[in-house]
């Protein structure tokens, strides 16, 4: 697995993935739809899979003395690493944003713990929609990205609408972390659980889909 992971880093990962990780710092922008930052992670994943397709990565990997399951596993390891890194790198900037002496975010959720919980659910949705299409036919990486982007933006629209129309979201979740932290931690916990469940289910289904795929 370590060998395959080295292959992913040396040969497959798209250079923009590192740039998109750096975009975690956009959390210090006073007014910004912060969920978009985590959508960039999806963009990095798309570019990486597209890069793989254009460079015959699947064919190269399939000829190595490894199983197809390991090919899927190494890609998921890379994806999970990118997603977790994006979250971890964003944490210090969320703290800075909270300490900035400027009004609260005017165009979306605050940069708080609940945002991370909701973003994890968003990444879980992205993984599920994207990889269940991608591993059915790795040539259709564009279709996978369009459909997963639609799903993600629908999700963002629903969450942001909830912030405006549901008092619990507005009064408890869309606030600085000094207030109602237990509710936000609950959302974060839910986010971690839902992200994990969705990603594990996706991985298992992706392995089966890829087993049946003719390269």
């Amino acid at each position, binding site marked *: 697995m370590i060998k395959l992971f*080295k292959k992913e880093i040396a*040969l497959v990962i798209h250079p923009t993935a590192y740039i998109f990780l750096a975009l975690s710092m956009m959390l210090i922008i006073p007014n910004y739809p912060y969920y978009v930052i985590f959508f960039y992670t999806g963009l990095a994943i798309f570019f990486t899979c597209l890069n793989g397709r254009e460079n015959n990565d699947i*064919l190269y990997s399939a000829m190595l003395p490894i199983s197809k399951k390991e090919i899927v596993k190494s890609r998921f390891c890379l994806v999970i690493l990118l997603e977790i890194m994006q979250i971890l790198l964003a944490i210090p900037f969320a703290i800075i944003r909270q300490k900035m002496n400027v009004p609260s975010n005017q165009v979306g959720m605050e940069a708080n713990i609940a945002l991370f919980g909701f973003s994890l659910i968003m990444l879980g949705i992205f993984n599920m929609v994207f990889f269940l299409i991608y591993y059915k036919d790795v040539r259709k990486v564009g279709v996978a990205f369009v459909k997963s982007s639609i799903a993600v933006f629908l999700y963002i629209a629903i969450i942001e609408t909830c912030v405006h129309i549901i008092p619990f979201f507005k009064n408890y979740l869309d606030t600085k972390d000094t207030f109602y932290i237990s509710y936000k931690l609950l959302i974060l916990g839910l986010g971690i659980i839902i992200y994990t469940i969705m990603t594990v289910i996706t991985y298992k289904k992706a392995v089966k889909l890829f087993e049946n795929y003719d390269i």
Partner: protein
Amino acid sequence: MNVVEVNNLCKIYPKFELKNVSFTLEKSKITGFIGRNGAGKTTTLKSLMNLIHKNSGEILFFGQDFENNEEIIKQKIGFVLGEVNYYSNKKLNTITRITKLFYENWDDDAYIHYMKMFNLDGSKTPSQLSAGMKVKYSIALALSHNAEILILDEPTSGLDPVSRDEVLDIFMNLSNSGVTILFSTHIITDLDKCADNIIYIKEGKIIADTNVNDFVNSYRILTFKTKPQEAIKPILIGLKPIKNGYSALIKTKDCQKFQSVSTVADLESIMIHIEREEF
């Protein structure tokens, strides 16, 4: 001893079908896999490596079922798919550094030897190589992990005659040292030079799996100044017009049925006549 055994391999596509493909590869022999474009050569070779799922049939390497022993068997196989371009903007050295991680028997000396022999520069990227050089690099990778079987899909297409000759010499040397080689090709002279056996696939069906000499000796070419009579047409294979008349292939055993003198057929003319629709 058979190192590869394929029994009744079937793969069904909407517009194409591999029909009960069966053949064996003998240890240390070079086998040429021929057939016209779209006959099923690449599909068969990909099926061997489990890149394509067969509908039915059995594939054994060293007596072991491929699907259940994939990783062990792949360690012993070098597989080259023609001019396929991997990681076009990565340096060859980087691709090699990663590839060698996966092979227990990787031989750095052999790799350096083949890179020098093929005049390949590790600091270049595949995008900077000609089609022929890409094939050479793939072959160098396949040869550097001490594979016991080499399976190559059109390894010589795109190579200049000198490079082709070099590659075929390497095949013969490897064969002498015990490596089994299966390669598909359109260049029939490659087979004349180095193949021991031949597998001929037509429209998804194996029509010959035999020794090259036996195959060539089993046919003769007949020429006619005028179009031959209907009565003898069933014996003629691929009757076709030529400059001053017609030519057709016949089975050597049918020679005595004709008064005219038949000539020895070569592989290329056998293939052309077999593939030719009757005129």
